[in-house]
């Protein structure tokens, strides 16, 4: 199961998606589960959405930088989609912090399951730094900027509280 944060018309939704088999998914939003099946994989893909009451035709087209154009019964919706978690729980991330300083702290309490960088190593923006397990979900913490790892302040296996300083990038 994977979780996504979807922005539509200024509203934000958390959707968890489970692949049942190739081209077939279960997706849950606000407690309601939909069965979704791909019926055409052209440039604009066609989908069938089986809700509680009726089947609805949808189209979708992936665009760069997480944008997805969707049509529900031909009504257009512009969305932007972000992956927020892989695991059993949907994770609603807090509003993104401006981390210009490169000081990476824990967004949530959890356990550091693996550290993926060493001190002195160069990292690119968006490259993974460590995995923080919270609520049984592996959350990849990525570098907010390109730079060099100045110091790693935690060890693998450590339990950390929210806001604990983890890594400093400079």
């Amino acid at each position: 199961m994977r979780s996504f944060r979807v922005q539509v018309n200024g509203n934000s939704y958390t959707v968890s998606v489970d692949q049942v088999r190739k081209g077939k998914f279960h997706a849950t939003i606000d407690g309601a589960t939909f069965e979704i099946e791909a019926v055409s994989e052209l440039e604009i893909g066609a989908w069938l959405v089986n809700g509680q009451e009726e089947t609805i035709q949808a189209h979708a087209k992936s665009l760069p930088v997480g944008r997805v154009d969707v049509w529900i019964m031909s009504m257009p919706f512009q969305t932007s989609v972000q992956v927020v978690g892989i695991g059993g729980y949907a994770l609603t991330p807090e509003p993104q912090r401006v981390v210009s300083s490169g000081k990476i702290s824990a967004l949530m309490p959890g356990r550091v399951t693996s550290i993926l960088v060493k001190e002195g190593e160069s990292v690119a923006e968006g490259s993974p730094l460590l995995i923080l397990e919270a609520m049984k979900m592996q959350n990849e913490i990525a570098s907010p900027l390109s730079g060099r790892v100045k110091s790693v302040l935690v060890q693998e296996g450590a339990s950390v509280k929210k806001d604990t300083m983890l890594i400093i990038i400079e």
Partner: protein
Amino acid sequence: MSYALQGSTAILHYDGLTLFSNLLTVTAENFLLKMKLLIANRGEIALRIIRTCRKLGIRTVLVYSEPDEGSLPLRFADERYPLAGSTPAETYLNIPKLINAAMETSCDTVHPGYGFLSEDERFVRTCEENDLVFIGPSSAALEKLGNKLQARRTMKESGVPVIPGSDRPLKDEDEAVRMANDIGYPVILKAVYGGGGRGMRVANSPEEARNFFRITRLESHSAFGREEVYIEKRLQNPRHVEIQAIADKRGKVVSLGERECSIQRRHQKLLEEAPSVALDGELREQLNDAAKKGLSVAGYTNAGTVEFLLEKSGEFYFLEVNKRLQVEHLVTELTTGLDIVEEQLKVASTMNLDLSQSEVHVKGWAINCRINAEDPRQNFAPSPGKVFIYHPPSGPGIRIDSALFSGCDIPECYDSLIAKLSVHGTNRSDAIRRMKVALDELEILGIPTTVLLHRDLMRDEGFIRGDFDTTYLNKVLPTLKSSINEFEKIAAVVAAVEKAKTSSIHPKCMRGPSSRWRTVARTHLMTGK
């Protein structure tokens, strides 16, 4: 009347008399075959007219503006004639250019479609002066029904009930208030030369009557170039029911039955059906008789529609005559099995109407949904743009009149109507079920349209019961909003699934299905063949 041909002798059956004539050897078909028709319109209605012409073997010339250069009807006209410019004033409203186009292409007949110059007296007169047959009423008949007030007077004289109000333009604000007080509020101030649902304001008090008289006069002046305003009582929650008729020069008028057009927004029809749930045998007869009488007194010719407002009590009042082929004519075609454009062409070419009232049978139920390029989320703001996928629905009892195609552009300078989706069923609930299916199948990707609104209406209990009037749509619009919110959630779900599909966890492991070609190629590579 009917006729038969035996050699060069026509046998004419007319009102029980059988006449033999050697002179009457020209049949409607003969007339039609030599006809060459200029279509002074665009979009779906141009295509609609072309279809009938092709069936009858009539050659067509279609004029077009610059934005319409790649439009669908141009692919099916026999000839095309460019009108320089893009604004309606430069093109489809330009009388000299259109007359010139007809002359240069040797057309003898002009079909104006609806909108644009379809009810323009000057255009009709100019056609007549240039020996062009105008498909519609004569200029003399148009004059009798020329503006709203004139039509009101003509109808009143022929004994058709009219809404209490003034029979001539109001002189000034004081008269407006005085008349409003006499009639009783609410009243409606109307531009004498208004049309298309514009130039009307409802006043609920003497202050508003005074104020709105001034505003309506100003609006009318800027929109229609005339400032005359009159006043009528505003009926409470009436239905809009209209009679489609066709008439000839001898005063013969045949009714093709009624249409129910109460589903409106800002006086603009959005959905029409035939017949109407509001009429029973006797009331239906009264409306038909009133419409036929009114048109006959006016000396009306060709296809026309008499609109009525109908109160719950069964009282009905004349509203307006639409002196043209109407947008919603197709529901009447579905219930009667007639081709109204064909009837128009025949009656215009032979001067006589072959069709008799006893030949008109209304069968089943038809509904038409107007699909407009309007965004129901943005208060129905126009939504021009590119349609990159268009899939029209089909199947038994489904008809769609549209000039859409995948990749077409919806220009911003014209009407927002882009498709008319009609269905025909054995009865009303059958038609509604059929419309649900058709709406679900219709795909118009690229621009927001009113499809969702119709989808909601087909599921609305009041609509299904047939319990609605002209104020109904405004009441159910909030329901539409909630359905859009529901769809927004589904959009979020689809977006997430699309993302899940395209951003697989191990994208590099995802290969296309294995193929024999690939396996053989790999074996060859490895074995060095």
